[in-house]
């Protein structure tokens, strides 16, 4: 610093011995809470699985849903959540400077492990987003199959986009465009508050619209639960084909017995072969389209935005007076244009590798969806679809075997008086 004082006004030396107050540095939420959150998540997942498989209790699931909405939703303000953790993990893998918190990693992994063994227990009553939508569902309607199947690929697109933008460091779009966080925080941008209200209103008659047609983490859980060790069944014993449960699922996740007509098999096989041939074609086409879209996608990154603004307006006269944020940014670029442009070029390069992968992913999802539609599903009973079932436990009550067994249990457990010969009074 030399002889020159670094201060315009030298700090005073008080004669009265006045003590300088220290700058307060309030700490954040104690780290122990992160582990408590993980413990609550683990407990809730365990209880949900137990309620679904052992108790087969819709009431229990409802109670747990309310708890989850209160704890993970309103109390924790929807953060940390598994849906967003997908992006943290993507950033953690791609950016070595980003330290992924253990708690976030646990929120990402635990529901997935449960899905691999017991299906979507997380969606049933642990996820505050799912629980909230489940609680507002009043009069479910059935969606047309083409709409249902068509929209069911959207979560995979959204997941790909979330990973793409998180991995390239452009932002966390899944968090940014989360419709229910505004409900839990009772505050937020107008657009997202509106989206939240619209989705909740829609959710009163279309079961869980976000879970089914948007949720990127649900898409991952769906993939996991296709391979799950155990699965939810409508009936506790055996299916009598009574068809009482046929319309019980508000989420269109109940598979009907497949047609046993042998004349259907041959065209189905041909269709399957064609769709299988389509898979590599779709991936390559998607990849090429992704590569073409890379400049447009890279504009999501703030540095690229700034570089483009600088290239467009760099020579404009410097503004005087109070500067707008845009002018401040332009100032920064003017001071060191080389660095900004170089950083932007680096980001664009990253996008050039990432967007073809994203495009390929889109192609793969579409093609595999077609394969899935062409696959001949052999089933004789009414069974919840492994992937689509949210384990909400609604269908259990529709099965006469269930009610019969329950009535039997209740009478046999109670050593009630009428069964015993009454003593003469």
């Amino acid at each position, binding site marked *: 610093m030399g002889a020159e004082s*670094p*201060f*315009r*006004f*030298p*700090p*005073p030396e*008080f004669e*009265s011995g*006045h003590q*300088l*107050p220290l*700058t*307060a*540095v*309030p*700490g*954040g*939420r104690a780290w122990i809470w*992160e582990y408590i959150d993980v413990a609550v998540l683990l407990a809730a997942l365990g209880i949900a699985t137990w309620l679904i498989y052992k108790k087969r209790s819709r009431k229990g699931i409802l109670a747990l849903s309310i708890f989850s909405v209160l704890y993970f939703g309103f109390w924790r303000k929807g*953060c940390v959540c598994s849906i967003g953790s997908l992006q943290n*993990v993507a950033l*953690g*893998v791609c950016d*070595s400077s*980003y*330290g*992924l*918190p*253990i*708690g*976030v*990693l646990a929120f990402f*992994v635990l529901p*997935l*492990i449960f899905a*691999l063994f017991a299906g979507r227990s997380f969606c049933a009553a642990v996820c505050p987003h799912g629980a909230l939508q489940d609680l507002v569902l009043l009069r479910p309607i059935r969606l047309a199959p083409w709409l249902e199947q068509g929209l069911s690929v959207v979560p995979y697109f959204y997941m790909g986009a979330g990973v793409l933008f998180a991995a390239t460091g452009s*932002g*966390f779009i899944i*968090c*940014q465009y989360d419709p229910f966080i505004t409900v839990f*925080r009772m*505050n*937020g941008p107008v657009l997202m508050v509106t989206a939240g209200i619209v989705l909740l209103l829609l959710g009163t008659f279309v079961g869980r619209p976000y879970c089914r047609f948007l949720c990127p983490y649900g898409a991952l859980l769906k993939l*996991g639960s296709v*391979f*799950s060790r155990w699965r939810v*069944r409508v009936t*506790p*014993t*055996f299916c009598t084909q009574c068809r009482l449960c046929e319309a019980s699922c508000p989420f269109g996740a109940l598979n009907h017995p497949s047609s046993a007509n042998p004349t259907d098999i041959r065209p189905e096989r041909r269709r399957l072969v064609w769709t299988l041939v389509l898979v590599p074609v779709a991936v390559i086409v998607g990849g090429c389209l992704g590569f073409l879209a890379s400049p447009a996608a890279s504009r999501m990154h703030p*540095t690229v935005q700034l570089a483009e603004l600088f290239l467009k307006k760099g020579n404009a006269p410097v503004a005087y007076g109070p*500067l*707008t*944020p845009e002018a*401040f*940014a332009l100032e*920064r670029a003017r001071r060191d244009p080389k660095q900004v442009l170089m950083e932007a070029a680096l980001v664009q390069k990253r996008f050039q590798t990432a967007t073809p992968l994203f495009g390929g992913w889109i192609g793969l999802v579409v093609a595999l969806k077609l394969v899935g539609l062409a696959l001949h599903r*052999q089933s004789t009973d009414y069974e919840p679809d492994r992937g689509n079932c949210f384990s909400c436990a609604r269908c259990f009550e529709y099965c006469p075997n269930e009610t019969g*067994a329950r009535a039997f249990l209740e009478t046999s457990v109670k050593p009630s008086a009428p069964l015993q010969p009454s003593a003469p009074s």
Partner: protein
Amino acid sequence: MIQATSMKPTPPPFHFSRRQFLRDGARVAAMTGLGTLVGLTAARTRGHGTVWQIDPQKCVRCGLCATSCVLEQSAVKCVHAHAICGYCQLCTGYFEPEPNDLNTGAENQLCPTAAIRRSFVEDPYYEYTIDEGLCIGCAKCVEGCNRFGNGSLFLQIRHDRCVNCNQCAISKVCPVDAFRRVPGSQPYLLKTTSHGS
């Protein structure tokens, strides 16, 4: 009695075993993949993760901190490093550019919420402290102090308020890239005397 498996008719054995085999294989593969992912990311995990903070050396006091936070009242507050402060009687962070009088009258204050308290220490020194309950992080005082004074006022994210969003909403709009993730063990980037002004 309600054992799901006991009374279920068994499907044809060949079909069952093939599907089951594929499913088991996929599950094992998925678990391995998850394990690798956990191993890969856990190796980089910092003990307490990271939190967001403003680099006061980069901040240009644009005012977006007050309006862009996801919280109703921004988690960004003005912070005072008293060791740098000149304790001026005419504080350019406290008073309007041309104040009527050098007193605590509302018309003289720069702060829109009167969040700075001015107290007399000894002639001619006055002490300025921030009431964080009132401060909205608009940085008007920070601008005044940095432009004409020692720059002892600066903005910081207060971690007792910040919810540590994945992507800080203010960092996305910050024109000078002053927001960055810092280790949770050292969550503040304070101005100290060694920095100079």
